C-alpha cells in the first residue's frame, strides 16, 4: 500500500469510534444547552445502561432506551434540581459523584471484569472483490445513527415549542416561567434526552470495544474535548469534532501507538483553549454561566 492508502485506512478505521465520541459529546451539549451544566456522569449512565441492555438483550432490544431516559432523569433529580439554587459548579461536582456511584454500583451488580457485548452487525472490514476495506457495516451503521440523531435533535430544538422552551430555559429560566412554561419539566426532558443519546452511544461502542464499569472513562475525556472545541453550545460542533477526534486517535494509533492517542486529544484541547477558548462554533457569550 502507498502512504496515502495507509492514511485513508487509518482514517476509515476511526469512523465508528469518532461517531460514538460525537454522540457522547452531543449528550454533553444537550445537558449544557438545557441547564448550563456539564454532566460528567454521562459515560457512567452510558455504561450502566449498556450493562442493562446486555442483561435484557435476549428479552427485548428496546429496554435500554427507557433505561437511558430514566437514568438521565435520576441524575437530574439527584444533582441539578436540589443544587440549582446555589450555582452550576455544585451540580457539576455532583455529577462526578454520580459517575463514581454508577461505576461502583455496576461493579457490585455485574462485576469488574471486561465482558463481551454481542455484535448486531458484522464488524469486519467490507470486502469488494479481493480487497478488504478498513471500514465495516457496523461502522457505517454507527455513523448513520449519529447523523440521524444530530438531524433529529437539531430539528427538535429549532422547530418545536418544547425545543424552544429548552433553549430558552438554559439562558433565562425566570422569563420562561413568566411565559407559562414549567422550567423543571423542560430541564428534566433535556437530561432525559441526553440520557437516551448517551445510552445509545454506550450500546453502539460496547460491541466493538467491550464492557466494564470503567471502560468508557477515556470516552468521557475525548467527548468533553470534542464538545469544548465545538463550542459547547453547538450540536454540529460536537459531532464534527467528535468525529474528528475519533479520526485523529486512529491516525495517531496507526502511526505511533494507542498509548499516545489520549495525549494527542489533550494537545488538541490545549491548542483550542489557547487559540480559540470560546470554541470553534460558539457565539460570543455562549459559554457564560
Amino acid at each position: 500500500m502507498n502512504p496515502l492508502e495507509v492514511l485513508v485506512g487509518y482514517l476509515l478505521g476511526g469512523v465508528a469510534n469518532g461517531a460514538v465520541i460525537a454522540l457522547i459529546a452531543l449528550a454533553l451539549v444537550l445537558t449544557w444547552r438545557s441547564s448550563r451544566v456539564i454532566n460528567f456522569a454521562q459515560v457512567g449512565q452510558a455504561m450502566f445502561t449498556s450493562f442493562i441492555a446486555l442483561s435484557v438483550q435476549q428479552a427485548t432490544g428496546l429496554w435500554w432506551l427507557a433505561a437511558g431516559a430514566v437514568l438521565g432523569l435520576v441524575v437530574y433529580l439527584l444533582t441539578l434540581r436540589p443544587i440549582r439554587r446555589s450555582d452550576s459548579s455544585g451540580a457539576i461536582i455532583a455529577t462526578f459523584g454520580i459517575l463514581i456511584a454508577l461505576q461502583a454500583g455496576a461493579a457490585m451488580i455485574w462485576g469488574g471484569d471486561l465482558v463481551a457485548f454481542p455484535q448486531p452487525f458484522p464488524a469486519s472490514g467490507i470486502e469488494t472483490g479481493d480487497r478488504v476495506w478498513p471500514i465495516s457495516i457496523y461502522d457505517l451503521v454507527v455513523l448513520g445513527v449519529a447523523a440521524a440523531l444530530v438531524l433529529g435533535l437539531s430539528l427538535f430544538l429549532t422547530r418545536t415549542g418544547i425545543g424552544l422552551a429548552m433553549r430558552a430555559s438554559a439562558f433565562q429560566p425566570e422569563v420562561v416561567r413568566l411565559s407559562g412554561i414549567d422550567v423543571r419539566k423542560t430541564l428534566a426532558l433535556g437530561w432525559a434526552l441526553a440520557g437516551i443519546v448517551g445510552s445509545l452511544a454506550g450500546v453502539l461502542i460496547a460491541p466493538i470495544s467491550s464492557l466494564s464499569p470503567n471502560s468508557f472513562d477515556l470516552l468521557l475525556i475525548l467527548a468533553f474535548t470534542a464538545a469544548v472545541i465545538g463550542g459547547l453550545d453547538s450540536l454540529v460542533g460536537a459531532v464534527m469534532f467528535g468525529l474528528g477526534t475519533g479520526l485523529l486517535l486512529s491516525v495517531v494509533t496507526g502511526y505511533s501507538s494507542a498509548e499516545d492517542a489520549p495525549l494527542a486529544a489533550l494537545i488538541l484541547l490545549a491548542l483550542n483553549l489557547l487559540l480559540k477558548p470560546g470554541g470553534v462554533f460558539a457565539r460570543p457569550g455562549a459559554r457564560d454561566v
Partner: protein
Amino acid sequence: MLEIDDLSLSYGPVEAVRGVSLRVPAGQVTAVIGANGAGKSSLLRCVAGLVAPSSGRVTLDGADVTAHAPEALVRRGLVLVPEGRSTIPELTVRDNLDLGGLTRPRAERRETSAEVLDLFPRLAERLHVHASALSGGERQQLAIGRALMSRPRVLLLDEPSLGLAPLIVTQILELVARLARETDLAVLLVEQNAATALRVADDGAVLHLGSVVAAGPAAELAEDEGLRHAYLGY
C-alpha cells in the same frame, strides 16, 4: 379584573410590602408610583407568583390566585413583564415572541404574532435578528410583545421606562394605554417616572416604604403638589 387585598410581603425581617390593596379594572391602566425602594417591584413579583406573600389575597376575576405559580397564572391570563427588558438575548426576535405564545394553540399563535407585529412594526423588520442586537426601546417592545403573545387579560409592567429615552417611554406607554382601552386589557404599571406614568394611567397609587399613602384618579394625583413634593420628587 385584578384585585389585591391587604397584601404584605417580607424578606426576613424586612417588610417590603405592607397591607397594599388595589383594584385593576379591565380596559384601564393603573399606575403604582413611588421612589426607588418603595416596594413597587416586590408588589408585582408577589402578584405574579414569583414570591409568596406573608399575608393578603390576590384575586383574578373573582378567583383566588394568591401565591399561584407564575406559569399557572400565565395560563389564567396574568402576565408580568419584569424590570430590565426581559428578553432572551441569545434567541432571535421570532423565538422570543414564540416563547410567549407557547401556552396557546399553534394557529392562534400565528394570528397573535401578526397582531403583535402590527403593533410593533420595528420588530417585524428584525424578526431574524438576535435580541442582543436590538436597541433598548426595541427590547422593551419585544418584552411587551412576548407578554402579549399569551393573550393576557391582566398585564403587569415593571419599570418599562428604565434606561430609555423619554420619547421612547412616552410612545411605549401610550401604546400600552391604547391597547388596554381597545382590548379590555387590565394593566398594572409600576413606574419610578411618576409624571409619565400618571399621564397615561386612569388610576394611580403612591407607594412609600411598602404602604399605599395616596390613591385615586391619575389626573388628581398628578395635580397634587404636596404629594409630588413629598413622595414623587418632581
